[in-house]
Structures are given as C-alpha cells and as structure tokens.
C-alpha cells in the first residue's frame, strides 16, 4: 500500500489534560491510519476520548506526544499559521450542533471556507456553493439564515460547507446526534453518497450502532484505547 493513500496517519498519539500535579491521560497511544476514500465510524462510550481524538486529527488540538501525518506530512513542527492553512485546505468539519454562522445566509456559510482561502468572495465560489447546496437538497434555501432552517437542513448546510474546499478528509462529530431518526438517516445517506461520489475520506463519530454498522469500517475507542 502506497504512502500516498494515507490521508491520516497517527503514531502513538497521547493526550493528557491538566498540568501542575493532577494530569489525566485521555488517549493512551493511538495508532490509526485512514486511507483515501474510507468511510469510517468512530464509536465508544461517553468520555472515551472520541471528540478529543477527532480534534487532534483535525489539527485543532495538539497531542501531548505522538506523530500526526496529514497526507504524509508531519504536522508536529508546523507553526500555527501553517496548521491553519493545512486545516482550511485539507479538512472539513461537521459538528453535532451544526455550528453555522448565524449572521450569514446558507449560501454564504458554504462559501466561507473558500472566501477564507481566496481572501474575498468570487462568482466561482457562489457557483460551487449553489451546486453543493443543490446537491444536499437545499436549492430553494440559498438565502435563508441558519435560524430559519430546521435542524436537518442546518446539518445539510454544514455538510455542504465541509465539502466546499473539496478537502480529502471530512471529520464529523455526532453529525446526527441532534436529529430525529428519519432526519438522521437522511444525513447519513447523504454522507455515504458523497463519499462514493467524491472519494472523500470520512471519519464519523456516532453513538448510533445502527448507523455505525452501515459504515465500511468501525473503530471502537474504550478508555482512550482502540479496541477494534
């Protein structure tokens, strides 16, 4: 297997919280590789460290020790500016609570990663964002502010936004946790389809065993260790 197919490679990643005196280790030496195009569920009991692991993979948090490679590139020595750039280009996020920016319309929210990359809005971004929102079934909601959208619709916007910069990896932390079963199924289906269409790698944290079993790969975390 070629190194180039490794989107993410974690080697012996540890994370401790707290400083003077009382430190608790939340992740105890995680080794994990995500390949191009994989669709992986990350499951585990509450407090097992799923969100922590996701944030570390997403370059939002530094591990206490260990190596994280994004597409073969060691991120340990990169300064904050470079990490931010890499994050913008390589990683899309979908969070449990949608996390859209309330002051901006659905369309503008989807354009945001592109505007941040290019420094300003462009017609091309608008086109791409429109296409993505159409893809997630929101062609008629382009100019709606998040407050005027349902939970499921907001999560679709968030997915479209995560796809906007066409990143090789999308991290989703309980993307359906806040939705009813029907809406959760829809969202999950959407993620699955996007994965097939674009070959984007997905790592999805979920509590829902029903959904987890529909993923091609399942990683289980218990007490900060990968058990399966």
């Amino acid at each position, binding site marked *: 297997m070629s190194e180039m197919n490794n989107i993410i490679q974690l080697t012996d990643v540890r994370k401790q919280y707290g400083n003077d005196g009382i430190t608790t280790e939340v992740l105890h030496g995680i080794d994990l590789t995500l390949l191009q195009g994989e669709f992986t569920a990350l499951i585990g009991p509450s407090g097992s460290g799923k969100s922590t692991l996701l944030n570390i993979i997403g370059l939002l948090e530094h591990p206490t020790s260990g190596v994280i490679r994004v597409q073969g590139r060691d991120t340990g020595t990169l300064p904050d500016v470079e990490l931010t750039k890499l994050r913008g280009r390589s990683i899309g996020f979908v*969070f449990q609570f949608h996390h859209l*920016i309330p002051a901006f319309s659905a369309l503008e929210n989807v354009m945001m990663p592109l*505007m941040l990359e290019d420094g300003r809005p462009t017609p091309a971004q608008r086109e791409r964002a429109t296409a993505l929102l159409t893809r997630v079934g929101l062609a008629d909601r382009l100019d709606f502010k998040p407050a005027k959208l349902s939970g499921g619709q907001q999560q679709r916007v968030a997915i479209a936004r995560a796809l906007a910069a066409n990143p090789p990896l999308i991290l989703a932390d309980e993307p359906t946790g806040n939705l009813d079963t029907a809406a959760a199924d829809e969202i999950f289906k959407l993620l699955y389809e996007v994965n097939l269409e674009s070959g984007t790698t997905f790592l999805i944290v979920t509590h829902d065993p029903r959904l987890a079993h529909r993923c091609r790969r399942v990683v289980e975390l218990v007490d900060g260790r990968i058990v399966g």
Partner: protein
Amino acid sequence: MRIEWLLALRFLKEGRAQTFFMLGGVTMGVGVIVFLTSLITGLQRSIIEKTLGTQAHVVMRPPDDEARRIITPDSTLAVSANVERRAQRLSSILQWQQVMRELEKRPEVTAVSPLVAGPSFAIRGSATKSVALMGIDPEKYTRIVPMPSFLKEGEFRITANDAAIGTDLARELGVTLGDKIRLQTADGRSETITVAGIFDVGIRDLNRRWVFITLRSAQNLLDLVGGVSSIDVTVRDLFKAEVIGEQLARQTGLTAESWMKTNAQLMVGLKSQSASSYMIQFFVIISVAFGITSVLVVSVIQKSREVGILRAMGCSRRRVRHIFLLQGGVVGLVGSLLGSGLGALLVTFFASTAKNPDGTPIFPVVLEPGMFLIAAGVATVTGILAAAAPAVRAAKLDPVVAIRNV
C-alpha cells in the same frame, strides 16, 4: 470586498444594540469635540482678528545701541554725537529700502510697510494735544492695517497736505473734514495739514493719538530724513509670526517683535483656554475608547463560537484580529461622521440663540473641513486602538473550547 471587511461589517450589523451603543458613544464624543473646537476657534479667532486689526504681525526695528555703534564706527565724532543725542533722537533703520526688498522676497511674507513714528503735538487754536505721528506710504500701509475700512468720514487720502486723524482727536480739537491742524514737535519743527479723513479703529487711545501723514512729512518733523523708525510685516500664517520674525531678524540684523510678544498677556489667555479645551477633548476621547473596548470585549465573548468555527475552517489568528480591529475602526469612522453632524448642528443652534443686541452672533462659529477630517481621523484611530485588546483576545481564543462548549 475583503473577507475581513465582510465579516467585520456583518458582525456589526448583527450586533445591533451593541453597535448602536458604540456608535452612540462615538457620536456624542465627537459631537462634543466638534462643538467645543468650533466654539473656541471662533472665539479666539475673533479676539485675534480684533487685536490684529490695527497691528502688524511682526515689527522690525533698528538693533540695540551696541549694534548701532558697530555700524557707524568710521567717525569718532559721529559716535560721540550719537551717544549725546541718544535720549532724544529716534533711531533709524539704515538702508531701509533695501531691507524692504529683502523682506518682500520671502514667500511667507505677505506685506511690508515702512513707518516713521514719533511723538508730536497737534495744535488747533488754543487746543494742544499730544499725538503719535504715523508717517506711512498709504498704499503699503493699508495692506497691513485696513485703514479705509475704519473710516467714519472723508477718505484715507494721505498726501503732503492731507492727513487722517481719529474720531476722538477730532472731537477734542473740535475739527471736521477740511479743517487745518498744525503739527509741532518738541524741537520746534512744524507742518500744517488738512484733515481729509476721520477714522474709528475701535480703540479709544489710538483714536485719540494716531495722526497719519506721509513718510516724508514725518521724516522732516522727526528729523529722520531718509530713514524710517520701523518696518511692519504681515505673514501668511500668523501663528508662525514669532518664528518668522526671528528668521527675519537674523537675516536683516534688525530686531523683530511679533504680535505674540506684543500681546503676551492675550497669548497666555488663549493658550490656557486651548489647553483646557484639549484636556476636555482628551478625556472625552479616552472615555469613548473605554466604551468601545468594553462593548467589544463582550462581543468577543459572545462571538467566541463563531470565531472558533472560523478558525476551524482555516481563518488565521491574524485575520481574526483584523476583523475586530476593523469593527473598532468602522465604529470610530461612522461615529465621527454622525458626531460631526451633531456637533455642527449643536454649535449652529447655539450660535443662533446667543446674539448681540444688534443681531450679530456673540460666538462667531468656525466650522472648518480640516476639523472634521481631524475628528474623523482621531475617532478612527481611537476606535482601532480601543479594539486592540478585544481583538487580541479574540485571536487567542482556542477553537476547541469554542466548539466543545455549545
């Protein structure tokens, strides 16, 4: 539009109440500053105008005794005679025509006028009054002191026969236009002139003492043939009079006295007035800045989730900082525009209510574009500086904390 601007403006638009309060603070602050500045500027300007209405900006006089002796060392006789006569004789500027030409060449000088001034008596019948002879070149002198505008009767026609005197002297001597007056000095020289004009410069002492005659007549009467006693100068920027005066003195070897020195008392008054006004403005600016800072600090805390999301999507710390600095700057700029309008309105209203009995405003209001530009600049910079602490704070926000704590 740059993404920083887009985000800054949208955040401002979204935070309606907060933006309103920040803008309100800046508007009122700038309003007070504009009001105060235009009032004080107007007041000071009218005081200065009144004072300088009858004065040159700089008066050039012959150098002191020692300097004069150095100029005429060729004859010991002349020097001893000079010393003997020092007490009575007016000193004269040597080669004054050449000095005048030199002065006129300087770009900051707008007008130059020679003057032969000295004491004399004005005699009419049995009435004798002590007066100040003002020997002038009328065309040059009126460019420094606009005598024709002070004229009550007749015209400002100064010739070998015609002269102009003040209203009070005319009354004391009982003369009207066309009457003759004899001018006689202490050493017995005399000339007779006809009153061609009667003026009122608004200062009684000058109305009582000034008698305008030609340079030549004054030179004859005061025994200064070929010389002048001083050279009046006006300059483009009257507040530079002191500095320019010093330069002119160095260039010509004469002494220079600026209107600021002549009116030192007035200058102290004006300066302390300005100083207290600056102090008020300073504290207004400081409190406006505090207002902006405290509102933005709250806004940063409220926006921490958005900031976290933006950071996760690849927004750099630097950009986050700029977004909040811009908000401060925009509030400062827009507030200063509103405040300028408010201040202008206030001061115009104030001036229209406070009037002299004759209907002229007590406070001549001065609204200058320069003042508004400065207000806008200061308010914008203040807004940006006030936003510095909140902006740094926003840039330091940990995206994880913002994203985890929903």
